């Protein structure tokens, strides 16, 4: 039942990242339904509305000044006048919306949607999330001005914006290099360096074969609306860098005097971490690497368990997990994608893949000048089925550790809802033993978000034809 792959009918932010240095998200409310529909139809056209059109998956002849895409919430589809019997064909988690799924996502306590700032405090009025990608601010402003003026200024109300920018290549707050692993698709050839199993297109696009043999996700109806669409979990994740770095200090101090310290770092191996680096500083890096599953420079622990600077270079993506792996079972990347490693849910290897598009917000944290500025990640977690991918990873793997009895009952060390009194995480040592770290707080808080549907180009045109 797979549909054809037609690049110019797909939004371009699904299968590949644009790799721009800035992104601005406009959080929009449909103010005038008819004017908004006309605008959607216009941006779906190749020539666009006054020059603004959706960036599609079509190959570029020259790199555009900016890229532009839209996602619609369930309330947005309703506000645009999608008929009730069509709305009913969308999946429950999308219909209910992200705030209703808080318990599954770990959004309680300081992440509780009740604490989210505007406009996320009124999810019913959040209809469209438009994203603008560029390398400079004037282009972001230009597109924003265009949207503010849509339909003679009547179509849409800008209820808020969020802006992210890269400050050091692919490095995110907490100092890790991100944006390394992504599902690989047979039809996309832009990142030959990624060496992972191929994912079927149905991992992200509705109407295509999924990664479960014989299983199909429901395509929202009618077909022109649902086919080639994709769901997205947009998340604003505030990161407490000071708490994270402080915890690395604390854990490194403990490891320095731990009876197994030589199995954490062989005496004399400090030099592998850099010229003149202290044992304490090297131990900090080891803790950070174990929590993530990658050294902060991106090198996977699975291939280089003892140093971020292996003598002969290792692949960043071509690895798997075994019982002897140097990567702890509870590390963030292993939790969120156990690859081919043994897991409890035997059919779930490779079936919960997410396409991730994230960019940091807030300036880099300077430990010499501590501040209270909010900083974090503007994350997009894309998949054809939010329940199977984003939610399943969040609740059973990140927050519960159900995939392996050794970590069950513990939270993801980097982003889980951890409490110092109860948190624990097992580092795996070079001799196969482990050391349990405790006492770490929650480093990441949710500060907003929404489930959106990224419609295909024909779907935008379909929306433009609605009446009433």
């Amino acid at each position, binding site marked *: 039942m797979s549909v054809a792959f037609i690049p110019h009918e797909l939004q371009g932010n699904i299968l590949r990242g644009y790799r721009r240095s800035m992104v601005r998200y406009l959080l929009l409310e449909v103010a005038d339904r008819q004017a908004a529909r006309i605008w959607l139809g216009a941006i779906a056209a190749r020539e666009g509305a006054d020059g603004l059109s959706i960036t599609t998956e079509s190959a570029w002849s020259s790199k555009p000044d900016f890229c532009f895409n839209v996602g619609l919430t369930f309330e947005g589809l309703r506000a645009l006048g999608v008929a009730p019997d069509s709305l009913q064909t969308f*999946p*429950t988690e999308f219909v209910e919306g992200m705030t209703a799924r808080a*318990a*599954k996502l*770990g959004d*309680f*306590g300081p992440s509780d949607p009740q604490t989210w700032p505007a406009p996320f405090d009124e999810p019913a009025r959040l209809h469209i999330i438009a994203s603008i990608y560029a390398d400079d601010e004037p282009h972001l402003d230009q597109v924003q001005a265009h949207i503010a003026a849509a339909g003679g200024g009547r179509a849409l109300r800008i209820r808020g914006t969020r802006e992210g920018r890269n400050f050091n290549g692919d490095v995110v707050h907490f100092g890790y290099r991100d944006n390394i692993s992504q599902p690989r698709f047979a039809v996309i050839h832009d990142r030959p360096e990624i060496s992972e199993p191929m994912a079927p297109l149905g991992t992200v696009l509705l109407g295509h074969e999924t990664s*479960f043999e*014989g*299983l*199909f*996700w*429901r395509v929202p109806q009618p077909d022109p609306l649902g086919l080639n669409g994709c769901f997205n979990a947009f998340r604003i994740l505030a990161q407490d860098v000071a708490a994270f770095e402080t915890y690395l200090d604390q854990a490194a101090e403990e490891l320095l005097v731990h009876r197994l310290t030589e199995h954490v770092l062989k005496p004399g191996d400090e030099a592998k971490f850099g010229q003149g680096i202290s044992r304490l500083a090297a131990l900090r890096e080891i803790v950070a690497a174990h929590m993530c599953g990658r050294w902060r420079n991106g090198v996977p622990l699975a291939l280089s368990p003892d140093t971020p600077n292996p003598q002969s270079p290792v692949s960043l993506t071509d690895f798997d997990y075994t019982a002897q792996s140097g990567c702890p079972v509870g590390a963030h990347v292993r939790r969120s994608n156990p690859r081919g490693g043994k*897991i*409890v*849910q*035997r*059919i*779930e290897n490779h*079936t919960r893949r997410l396409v991730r598009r994230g960019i940091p917000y807030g300036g880099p944290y300077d430990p010499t000048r501590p501040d209270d500025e909010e900083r974090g990640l503007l994350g997009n977690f894309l998949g054809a*089925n939010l*329940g*199977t991918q984003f*939610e*399943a990873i969040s*609740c*059973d793997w990140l*927050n*519960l*550790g*159900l995939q*392996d*009895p050794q970590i*069950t*009952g*513990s*939270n993801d060390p980097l982003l889980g*809802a951890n409490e110092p009194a109860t948190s624990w995480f097992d580092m795996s040592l070079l001799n196969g033993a482990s050391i349990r770290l405790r006492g770490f707080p929650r480093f990441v808080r949710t500060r907003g978000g929404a489930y959106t549907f990224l419609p295909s180009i024909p779907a935008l045109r379909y929306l433009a034809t609605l009446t009433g």
Partner: protein
Amino acid sequence: MESEATWFDRLVDALPNTRLFQFIAEWILVPYWAARTPVKPQPGGPRMAPQPSENLQHMMNLIMPLKDKSPIGRAKAALAIAQNVDEIYAGLNNVGTVHFARFVLVDGNLCMFSVYDGDFSNYIRDFIATIGSVFNAIVALIEDGDAVIPCEHHVEAFIDWVHARDLYQVPDLATDLLAQHNAAASGDDLRLLPRDLILQLHANPNVSLGSGYRGYPAFSVAQIRQKLGVGW
């Protein structure tokens, strides 16, 4: 301070136990309330808890009304289970997160009671992916079952379908129960059993009373298997 009960207080207290009052309550009062204040049936199954260990050993009480409730229809259901039981159990083993599962006939209902770890949707989805094709034969015997088979092609609808037939789990503690149903939080006085709960039970006649007892809480299937050395 306890005040002396007057004859009128005593009459009011005794009223609910009189035949006449019970008759009026059942046939007039509750239906009238229910019609005036429609109550949405509470969703079935457990709720995810903040504490990770509380999300293990969840209970599913799936009640599926048979299309044919006669002894013949019930016999057909018994046969359908017997014919597929090996495959279903092998499948549940592969799902990996199921502690116990059993099938029971209660009146005109085929029931599946199971204890599983983690999130409900993931459990059912894994179940479909593992043994959906076998389960279709059973769902075909159930009222409104035809709309969701083959379940491999109706994954989302099937999960919602099962969710809707999984019994609502009344909170474990009387205090939580009273709180959830907006009672004036005042002890365990059953006379205060709130109207909302009565209306809920009117809308939702079968419920699970609490989430159940566990002899060894906070362990997953895989943890128990690992501790017993039987492989996971």
